[in-house]
């Protein structure tokens, strides 16, 4: 064991003794490792950002649909009750009528999208209620004419975010009905704002499907689609469960008249695409690391030929092949390890700066850091092997003659 300490000491001495050259050699490894760390954390940050924005934008929901060309069966309120009772771990199920119209407030009239459903629709967006409250089951039951919009919408159509209790006039198909604002969701997300850039402003209203259906002639008893809310991790699974249950109830088993899809499916695809992008970036930085490794090999070869005499001396006083080999391998490994440590520090700093500048969460996994450190040592061992062998195989007589 004392031997290892000797090798380590001699390696450090050699590295420190060759200060400037060591620094230049290490640079390749430093940059390579820093790039790996930065790329990995940037990739993780990007996935995290996209996933959370996606969830924020669309909520955790899936849709079960009837293909009306294949069957005349429709979903009913009883179906909803049955699903709520029997399917576990879902946050709720609701019909969903989507349409576009106009909304008029005390200041302005703007275009609006309208989502009608039950109180379950609150989970439609992760952008929670900031003011007032969402409409309730009773209000859905009784057909109260109430609505929920965004703080931004209130600002736009009333000129103030202080809009709870105010009335708006919703117009569609030449009909106008007055609804009362009961709740306001928070400001829209950055990604949403980004997507909305350059388009005319439109408000996002949510209303109970009962009154909405009556007011604008939608079916409030039979539905072609139902929206299921559940945590993203179990979403696809739950959507299938609901689909199968309803297929059974309506005697549609084995037909493909019902279909279900969820955003989780899309998320998975997106994850895969992001995964490819990350692998590609990682590959590029690993290549830079390998280039750094070749630099190390180069320097080690120079070092071996410069120290031929030293090798000869060591051998003449009894160093065996293995001892010389280990000495040079140690040097290469310590060199790349030091480069790795500096690279990790720079990589972490770079990750912080870049991720913060872009607005990603800074995610640096310990496994990445540990992996990078180990990888840098491996590079030293791998690229040091050839020079070390060359040194070790030298005959003492030839090495001394120089």
């Amino acid at each position, binding site marked *: 064991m004392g031997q290892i300490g000797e090798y380590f000491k001699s390696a450090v001495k050699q590295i420190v003794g060759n200060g400037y050259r060591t620094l230049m050699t290490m640079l390749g490894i430093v940059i390579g490792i820093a790039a790996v760390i930065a790329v990995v954390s940037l990739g993780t940050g990007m996935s995290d950002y996209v996933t959370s924005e996606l969830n924020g934008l669309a909520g955790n929901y899936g849709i079960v649909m009837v293909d009306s060309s294949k069957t005349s069966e429709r979903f009913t309120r009883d179906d909803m009750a049955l699903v709520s009772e029997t399917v576990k771990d879902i946050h709720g199920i609701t019909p969903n009528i989507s349409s576009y119209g106009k909304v008029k407030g005390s200041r302005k009239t703007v275009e609006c999208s309208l989502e009608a459903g039950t109180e379950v629709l609150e989970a439609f967006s992760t952008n929670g209620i900031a003011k007032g409250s969402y409409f309730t089951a009773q209000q859905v039951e009784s057909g109260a004419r109430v609505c929920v919009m965004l703080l931004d919408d209130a600002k736009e159509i009333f000129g103030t975010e202080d809009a709870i209790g105010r009335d708006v006039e919703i117009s569609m198909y030449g009909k106008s009905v007055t609804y009362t604002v009961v709740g306001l969701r928070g400001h829209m997300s950055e990604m949403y704002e980004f997507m909305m850039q350059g388009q005319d402003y439109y408000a996002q209203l949510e209303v109970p499907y009962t009154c909405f259906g009556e007011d604008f002639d939608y079916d409030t008893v039979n539905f072609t689609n139902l929206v299921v809310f559940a945590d993203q991790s179990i979403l696809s699974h739950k959507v299938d469960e609901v689909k199968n249950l309803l297929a059974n109830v309506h005697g549609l088993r084995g037909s493909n008249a019902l279909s279900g899809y969820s955003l989780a499916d899309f998320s998975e695809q997106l994850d895969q695409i992001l995964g490819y992008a990350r692998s590609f970036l990682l590959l590029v930085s690993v290549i830079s690391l390998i280039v750094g490794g070749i630099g190390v090999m180069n320097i080690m070869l120079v070092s071996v030929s410069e120290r031929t005499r030293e090798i000869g001396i060591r051998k*003449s006083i009894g160093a065996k092949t293995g001892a010389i080999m280990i000495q040079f391998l140690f040097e290469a490994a310590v060199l790349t390890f030091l480069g790795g440590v500096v690279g990790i520090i720079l990589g972490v700093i770079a990750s912080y700066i870049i991720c913060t500048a872009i607005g990603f969460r800074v995610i640096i996994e310990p496994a990445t850091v540990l992996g990078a450190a180990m990888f840098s040592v491996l590079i030293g061992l791998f690229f040091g092997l050839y020079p070390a062998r060359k040194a070790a195989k030298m005959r003492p007589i030839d090495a001394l003659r120089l």
Partner: protein
Amino acid sequence: MKLVEIRDVSKIYNPGENEVKALNHVSISIGKGEFVAIIGQSGSGKSTLMNMLGCLDTPTSGKYFLHGQDVSHMTDDEQSDVRNREIGFIFQGFNLIPSLTALENVELPLIYRGVGKKERERLANAALNSVGLEKRKTHRPNEMSGGQQQRVAIARAIAQAPPILLADEPTGNLDTASTKEIIRIIKRLYYEGRTVIIITHDPGIAQQAKRIITISDGMIKSDIINPDYRDEI
């Protein structure tokens, strides 16, 4: 059984074209505790002989027995071991490692021997003290005079007490004062019981040895007990 015995050893450099017969059927045996000088003109094959005796090179033909064991055709690692255990080298050019201090240089053969740190330091210190360098232990070779460097090399050669000391022109790079000092130390080591083989082209130095072997053109010309040998330091 002699300590060192080479039988009918030849060494041919560059066999084929341009071949040089550096040693031509040489046989020598040297007993334990002898003090031998090998003398000859430049190019006569002294260093080649020393490389054979020191297990640094293998003969083209012939055999080398050390302690009765054939060491002429061992593997590299086995030869490393023999050098480490049996032979202390003193070279003309000192051959110290420039990045290491005197003490660290002296410790090297002990490291390769596998001696633990404490014992190693004790032995290395003792060796340095015995050549009068107790004040230079932390100095690097480039901070020392030639004579001092050669004394470090001697300390390294004796640190782990090998039976044989092999010196190739140990004073070739030194002035008269340092030469005297080095020869004095080498003689003392001989009195302490070591077998000393010193290679030189300087008759003055050869005269200090008890037995003088003269070599010329790769062959032994004479092998005599030195009539002028004086038993004194």
